[in-house]
């Protein structure tokens, strides 16, 4: 079957605009994670969804960042009023535990 997919693959936006990133996990995977990878750095955890439990938002860097997940399917990560420091690759992963399967990422560039 298909792996984790993300869209768009690339997004260029202007400072101050809102952006929405999408993740389609592997069917049946109950857990979904968002990570951010800035240039030359490792991945930073952002948010975690597990089934119907309240999401773990402990990694979100500011209140401009939010994410939703519909049941055990698609998730969207929204960044409001984007700043240049938001430029990064945003990676989504889904899991049945313990292995996480990663999507190809969305490269966000804020001008």
């Amino acid at each position, binding site marked *: 079957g298909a792996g984790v997919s993300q869209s768009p693959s690339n997004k260029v936006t202007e400072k101050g605009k809102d952006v929405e990133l999408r993740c389609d996990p592997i069917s049946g995977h109950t857990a979904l*994670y968002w*990570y951010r990878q800035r240039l030359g*750095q*490792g*991945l*930073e955890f952002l948010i975690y969804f597990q089934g119907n439990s309240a999401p773990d938002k402990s990694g979100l860097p500011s209140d401009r960042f939010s994410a939703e997940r519909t049941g055990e399917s698609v998730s969207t990560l929204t960044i409001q009023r984007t700043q240049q420091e938001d430029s990064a690759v945003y*990676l989504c992963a889904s899991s049945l535990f313990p292995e*996480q399967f990663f999507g190809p990422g969305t490269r966000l560039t804020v001008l």
Partner: protein
Amino acid sequence: AQRVTQPEKLLSVFKGAPVELKCNYSYSGSPELFWYVQYSRQRLQLLLRHISRESIKGFTADLNKGETSFHLKKPFAQEEDSAMYYCALSTNAGNMLTFGGGTRLMVKP
């Protein structure tokens, strides 16, 4: 809070030479450690995890709790091993991963 450190950003070796990618961690509990790999133009994928204690593509990694290390080793590097390698740690809480900064391995012919 937990932390993962990969001291080398770049490691360059010749084909057939041994390779060791270093990983150190800090966490007060009992972590689960992973190595993930990203080949050129491919997505990040799991290479191995310490609990399974298996060898994948000739790579092994042993968890040393005394030294809080989880170094990745291979006795004879191959050109196709060239990639970015990330060490990652998971606690029991939520299974989210804490990643190191990554090491780029270049295997020269």
